[in-house]
């Protein structure tokens, strides 16, 4: 009996090692180039935030004028880092969960290079003054078909793996990832064709654009991050998911509510009146799916407190899920028609909300996944616990500062804007101290992510620790960077006898 179990166990381990090996280069490519884009995006974010309080900063260079740097910052963050991190996680998780090796690594890598080319040309296009002026879609119009085609080439393999897998249980992560893989092209094609190819009414175009931004957050980044959290939490702790029915509630309520959200940015603009208010209601209601998933994953992770304290993957994930809870509360508090919505519609709060979603929630979960996946596919352990800690602390303090300052500074700024008896200059001055704080916080995040990128690049070069003892956040392996056990290169995590 025990020998049969151990054979199955070995076969399982071999299968996992095979999957990891087949995906080593695609996953590392997306993570590393994504991390590089993240650093670029944050650098652009620092420059643009500095310009809000010191408009003369670098102003003689047309490439670096605020109106070009800011869209470059957001688009690099969304398409350079966000989408690529999502690709890395989707292809790896879908292969692991379907238990199929990747046979299309070459295609994925080629398409990944095309994607990066598209993003590079797009960002360069914005900086050179060819942006389209549609938020989150500022890449010149040649870029979106390139991105779309490479998207399909990157993810078609994961879809096929799911189709040809041995029938069986479909895990929660697979629901979220499959849904994200279907929603993204749907919203991306809709928004881009309607805005670039079939121009309709200009105000409706602005509405579609607002819906697109909300859809990218809640129908792509959110499900990818939640799918990842639902994988990491039980996997690392070794405990089952807290509640399956809560997971179902969370998933289907997201699927029902999120497509209606987004148009609250157009309250008062001349489009059919029901649309912005429906958008506000839907965004507030997103509290339900967000909390269902957050409670479920956090309850799973806290079922094993000592692992939670030691594992870098879980620490980032739990921070990201906390970001989701703050995001859900903000979604309710910032979108109340008649009280907070007029204040937040055109203030810093919108930026705070987007950054909280992209960095404070999505990116932190992606970092968690990175710390889990990379040692498995490179068969090396992370070099330094201290680098991971620096990354965590600076990211978390930085993002708390950026998003809280922007969310609440935005409310005060909005109050100033609505006070019509005061001259306009007063309202404009409200934002200035918050802009200074945001600049400083972005600097912290930039610092942490430069180290993250270097750490990741070293791992891809297979310069990680050759040890079967994972790099944990507590001192479990002595003071030597190679661990005091000294069992170098005996059995990496991908090896058949490793656990």
């Amino acid at each position, binding site marked *: 009996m025990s020998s049969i179990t151990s054979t199955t166990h070995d076969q399982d381990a071999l299968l996992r090692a095979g999957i990891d090996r087949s995906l080593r280069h695609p996953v590392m490519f997306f993570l590393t180039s994504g991390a590089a884009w993240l650093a670029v995006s944050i650098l652009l974010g620092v420059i643009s935030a500095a310009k809000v309080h010191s408009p003369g900063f670098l102003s003689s260079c047309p490439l670096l004028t605020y109106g*070009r740097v800011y869209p470059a910052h957001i688009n690099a963050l969304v398409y350079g880092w966000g989408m690529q991190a999502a690709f890395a996680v989707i292809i790896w998780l879908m292969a692991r969960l379907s238990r199929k090796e990747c046979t299309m690594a070459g295609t994925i890598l080629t398409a990944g290079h095309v994607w990066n080319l598209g993003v590079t040309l797009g960002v360069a296009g914005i900086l050179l003054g060819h942006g389209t002026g*549609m938020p989150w879609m500022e890449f010149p119009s040649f870029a979106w078909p390139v991105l779309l085609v490479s998207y399909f080439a990157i993810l078609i393999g994961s879809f096929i793996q*799911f189709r040809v897998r041995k029938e069986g249980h479909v895990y929660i992560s697979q629901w979220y990832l499959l849904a994200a893989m279907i929603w993204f092209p749907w919203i991306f094609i809709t928004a881009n064709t309607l805005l670039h190819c079939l121009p309709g009414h200009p105000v409706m175009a602005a509405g579609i654009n607002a*819906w697109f931004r909300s859809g990218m957050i809640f129908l792509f980044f959110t499900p990818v991050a939640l799918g990842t959290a639902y994988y990491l939490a039980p996997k690392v702790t070794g405990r089952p998911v807290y509640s399956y029915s809560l997971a179902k509630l969370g998933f289907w309520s997201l699927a029902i509510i999120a497509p209606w959200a987004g148009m609250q940015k157009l309250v008062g603009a001349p489009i059919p009146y029901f649309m912005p208010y429906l958008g506000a209601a839907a965004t507030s209601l997103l509290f339900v799916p967000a909390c269902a998933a957050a409670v479920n994953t956090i309850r799973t992770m806290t079922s094993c407190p000592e692992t939670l304290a030691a594992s870098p993957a879980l620490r980032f994930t739990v921070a990201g899920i906390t970001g989701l809870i703050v995001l859900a509360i903000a979604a309710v508090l910032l979108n109340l028609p008649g009280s907070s919505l007029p204040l937040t519609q055109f203030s810093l709060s919108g930026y705070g909300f987007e950054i909280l979603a992209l960095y404070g929630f999505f990116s932190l979960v992606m970092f968690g996944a990175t710390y889990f996946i990379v040692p498995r596919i490179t068969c090396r352990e992370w070099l330094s616990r201290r680098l991971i800690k620096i990354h965590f602390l600076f990211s978390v303090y930085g993002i708390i500062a950026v998003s809280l300052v922007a969310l609440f500074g935005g409310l005060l700024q909005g109050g100033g804007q609505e006070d019509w008896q005061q001259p306009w*200059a007063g309202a*404009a001055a409200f934002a200035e101290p918050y802009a200074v704080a945001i600049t400083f916080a972005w600097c912290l995040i930039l610092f942490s992510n430069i180290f993250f990128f270097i750490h990741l690049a070293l791992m891809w070069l297979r310069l990680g620790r050759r040890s079967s003892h994972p790099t944990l956040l507590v001192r479990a392996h002595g003071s030597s960077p190679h661990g005091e056990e000294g069992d170098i290169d005996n059995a990496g995590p991908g090896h058949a006898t490793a656990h």
Partner: protein
Amino acid sequence: MSLRTFILGLSATFGVAWLAIIVVPYLKMRDLAALPFPEEKATSAGIFIPKRSGRVTDGAKVYAENGCYLCHTQVVRPTYAGNDLYRPDWGGLKNDPDRGDTRRETNAYDFNGETFAQIGLMRMGPDLSNLGRRLEYLLAAGVNSEQWLYSHLYNPRANTELWNSTCPPHPFLFVNREVKGNPSDDALPIDAGPGRELVPDSDAKALISYLLSLKKDHPVPATLNFAPAKKNDEN
């Protein structure tokens, strides 16, 4: 749950919203019918088409490319959604010398000639829906709105009233060139060096004519006029 049921479920939940707030409103708004003006308003009988003068399309492109929409909005919300209308010169003029109070909310015809309505993201600067009319009205006699905008574009803080403006300067939209013959009419009143002058380039010119076309000085037909009926028409 099979893959087919799953995809059907997703298509249903997403598709309903997609049809209801994207596809159908898009098709419905695609060709808005021109609104007739009532006959008794003799000022402009016929149909309502707000005039946009100048190089609107080119200027809108420059506006988009240089990210003006990041800090400036172009929407005056009705009073139930914000206090924009109360400001004296955002949605029209409170005391228009000719027509009295002309303030009104943005309507769907205000963006004629544009492909994307630059509703805007943040209000770091003032709303621009009525910029053209506001400048005409506010500037002292003898100051040309075009000249004022060129100077503002070149360096917003040069104006002492806007000493703490956070609007970025755009010197790259101007050309420093040798004066040949008489100085240009649109040269900036800034010393550009001996025998030289600073003149706006074609992008700056297009942008300014677009900005000056942003006006709410046109009477609207009764069907679009949501202002409460006035008791006396003196204001």
